[in-house]
C-alpha cells in the first residue's frame, strides 16, 4: 500500500482549503442550504414576506385534497408517455441513418444538434408562432390545403401533444449524439456473424444493435425522463398551464404555488413528494430496462 506523503496528511492544509473554498461556498449557499431550508419549509406556512408559522403535517395533508396537484401529475405523466417514446424512436432512427455513410453526414449531425444549444425560451416562442391559430405557419398550410385550422394550443386534447412534439424537436439532437456514440461501439463482427447466420435487418436490429446499445438506451431513457419531469418553460411561455389546466405540469404548479401565491411551505411539500415520485419512477425504469 502506498503511503501518503506527510504534506497531504497534514491537517488544515491551507492551500487545499483555499482551492475548494469557491465550490464549497457555492455548494453550501446554493445547494445544501436551500435543500435543508426547503425541508424545514415543509412543516411551515410562509409567504416569503411574513414570518413563518409551524403547521406540522398540514401542508402534506392539504396536498391529498388538492385536485389541481393530482391533475398536474397526470399532465406530466401524459407528457412523459408522449415524449419519451417519440424522442427515443426519432433519435434512434436518425442516429442509425447518420451512422451510415450518407451524403453531408456531418452537416446533418450539426443541424439536428442545433436546437439543443438554442435557448429554450427562444424555441418556445418560435413554436408558439408556428402553432398560432390565426397566423401560424402550420394553420396557413392547412388552410391552403383546404383543411380546417387546428387550435394547437387552445384545445385541451391537443395542447399537451403539441408541447410534447416541440420538446421532442428541441431535445432529439442530444439523444442522436448519445445513440450515435453507442452505435459506434457495436463491434462490426457481430453484424458479420449475423449475416452469416442469415439474419434479416429486423433481426440484426433487435438481437444485435439493441442489446449492444442497452447502456446508452438506459441513459437516454433516464435523461429524457428527468427532462420530462422538469417540464416548465414550454407550458409557462406557451399556455400558462391552460387550456383548462391540461398543460399544467407539476413543476409549473409548484412554481405558481410558491412564487405567484406565496405558499412556500406548501410548494416545498409538493416538491418533496414530487422528488420521491421521480426517484421511484427512475428506479423502476432502470430495473425494467436492465432486465429487458
Amino acid at each position, binding site marked *: 500500500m502506498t503511503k501518503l506523503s506527510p504534506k497531504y496528511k497534514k491537517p488544515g492544509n491551507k492551500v487545499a482549503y483555499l482551492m475548494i473554498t469557491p465550490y464549497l461556498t457555492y455548494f453550501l449557499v446554493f445547494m445544501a442550504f436551500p435543500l435543508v431550508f426547503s425541508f424545514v419549509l415543509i412543516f411551515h406556512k410562509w409567504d416569503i414576506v411574513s414570518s413563518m408559522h409551524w403547521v406540522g403535517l398540514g401542508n402534506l395533508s392539504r396536498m391529498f385534497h388538492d385536485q389541481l396537484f393530482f391533475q398536474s401529475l397526470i399532465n406530466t405523466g401524459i407528457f412523459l408517455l408522449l415524449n419519451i417514446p417519440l424522442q427515443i424512436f426519432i433519435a434512434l432512427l436518425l442516429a442509425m441513418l447518420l451512422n451510415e455513410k450518407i451524403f453531408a453526414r456531418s452537416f446533418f449531425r450539426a443541424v439536428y444538434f442545433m436546437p439543443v444549444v438554442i435557448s429554450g425560451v427562444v424555441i418556445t416562442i418560435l413554436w408558439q408562432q408556428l402553432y398560432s391559430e*390565426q397566423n401560424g405557419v402550420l394553420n396557413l398550410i392547412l388552410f391552403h390545403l383546404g383543411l380546417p385550422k387546428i387550435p394547437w394550443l387552445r384545445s385541451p386534447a391537443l395542447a399537451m401533444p403539441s408541447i410534447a412534439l416541440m420538446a421532442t424537436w428541441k431535445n432529439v439532437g442530444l439523444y442522436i449524439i448519445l445513440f450515435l456514440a453507442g452505435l459506434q461501439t457495436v463491434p462490426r463482427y457481430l453484424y458479420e456473424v449475423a449475416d452469416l447466420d442469415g439474419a434479416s435487418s429486423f433481426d440484426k436490429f433487435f438481437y444485435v444493435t439493441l442489446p449492444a446499445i442497452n447502456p446508452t438506451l438506459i441513459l437516454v431513457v433516464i435523461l429524457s425522463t428527468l427532462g420530462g419531469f422538469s417540464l416548465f418553460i414550454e407550458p409557462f411561455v406557451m399556455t*400558462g398551464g391552460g387550456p*383548462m389546466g391540461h398543460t399544467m405540469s407539476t413543476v409549473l404548479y409548484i412554481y405558481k404555488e410558491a412564487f*405567484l*401565491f406565496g405558499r412556500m411551505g406548501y410548494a416545498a411539500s409538493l416538491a418533496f413528494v414530487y422528488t420521491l415520485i421521480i426517484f421511484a419512477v427512475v428506479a423502476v425504469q432502470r430495473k425494467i430496462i436492465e432486465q429487458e
Partner: protein
Amino acid sequence: MTSLLKKIAAAVRSFVPGGLIPVLMISGVLLNGCGSEHQETGKNGIVHLTYWPSANEYEINLAVLEVAQWNAAHPKIQIKMQPIPSSQSSEEVLLAAIAGKTTPDICSNIWPGKMGQFTRAKAVVQLDTFADFDSLFAARIPENLIKDSRYLDGHFYQIPWKTNPVMIQYNVGMFKSAGVDTFPRTYSQYLKAGRKLTRDLNGDGQIDQWMGIVDVRAKWWVRFFDFYPFYIAASGGQTLLKGRKVLFDTQASVDVFRFFQTGFNEGIFPRARFQTDPFLMKIVASRFTGPWEIAHTEKYKPKGLTYDFAQIPLPDGKKGHSYTYGDPKNIVIFSTTKHAYEAWQFVKFLVTPKADLNLLKLSGQLPVRKGLMEDSLYRPYFRKNPMMVKFAKMIPFTRGVDSVPEMEEIFDAISLEFEASAILGKRTPEDAVKRAAKRCRQILIE
C-alpha cells in the same frame, strides 16, 4: 469583553479553514452592498429618499418632473427616482424587494390587491398615524373609494393615486358601416350588433373581422379586462368579497359567464390571439380597455380610423348606471424607510392638485380626486381632451379589488373557470361559477 471576543474568534478559526475567512469577509461586504434601497441621512443633514414609479415611458417622464420640482424646493430632503426594476410584473419585484429588505422609501405603482399581503407582512407604513392624514384623505378621496382603501384591520396603508376605468373602445366607422349607430347598452344588444359586425370580408369562408377581442389566456390578471368589469357592472358595483366572505356566486356572475360564452360560441369573439394590434388593424371593432389607450391610438392609428368609448353593457333588464373596474394604482411608504415623516411629505407632494394636473397631462391617467370635473384647474385639460371626460365621469362608478392577501389566487381560480366555461364552453356558467366560488372559499379558509 475583549477576552470573550478572542474566545469567539478562536472558536471560529477552529471551525472555519483559514482560506475561507477572507472569502466570508468579501461575501459579507458584497451582501452588505445588496442591502436596503432606502438612504441614510447624509453628513450635511440632507435626507435622501428613494422613489419607485412605474417603468412606463409616460410615468417616468412624470416622475422626472415631480422629483426635479421637489428637489429644487426641498434641499434638505432629496429624492432619487428609480423606475421599478423590470420583471414579469411589478408585484413580483416588490415582493422580492420586501423579502430582501431592499424596498424603496416610496412607491407609486401599488396594485391594491397586493396590499393585503404587504400589510400582513408589516412591509408598509400605517399612514393614518400622520396627523394630517385624515384631512388629506377627506379632501381628496371620493366616498366610494374609501372602503376599497381600508385594510381589514380598519387602518389605511395606501393613498389612492390614480385610476383607469375600464370601458369599451369601439371603431365608430365599422359600427356605422354595419348599421349600428349607437353603442349597445345591454348584452343582447351587444350580441346582436356583434352578429352584424363579425364578417367574412373576402369570401374565403374564414371570418376576418370580429365584434370584440378577449384575451383567451387563463392568466389571473387578464380577467381585469373582461370578467371583472362586467361582474362589477352586472352586480351594481359589488366587488368579489365582503371581508373574507365570497360574494360573487350570484346571478350576476352567471350572466357574465353566459354573455362571454355566447359571444365565443357565436364567434363574435375570436378564440385566438393576434400578433398585431387587432383594433388598429380593423380586425376587431371593439375592445375592453382604459384611458391609456387614447395616447396609443392617437400615435399609431391608421388614417381615417374614428373611435369612441362606451360603458360596459349590462345584463338585459338590469337598470341603473354601469359600474366598472377602476384599475387603481396607489402610493405607499415602505416600512424599511428611516425617514417616514419626510417620505410622507413627498407623498403629499405627489397628490397635490398641481401634481394631479401633471399626472393627467403627462401620463393620460386620471388622479383619484373628488370633484375632478368641476375643478377649474383641470377644466382646460378636459376641454382639450374630450375623450378623457368619459373616463373622468366614470370615476364615481369604479370599484377596486378587495384587500385580502389571497387576491391573486382568487382571480386565478375565477380565471380557470372562466376559461373552461366562457371561452371553451366546456362547462355551464352555473357550474363554473359554483366551482370558482367553492375554490375561493377553500383558498380563504386555508
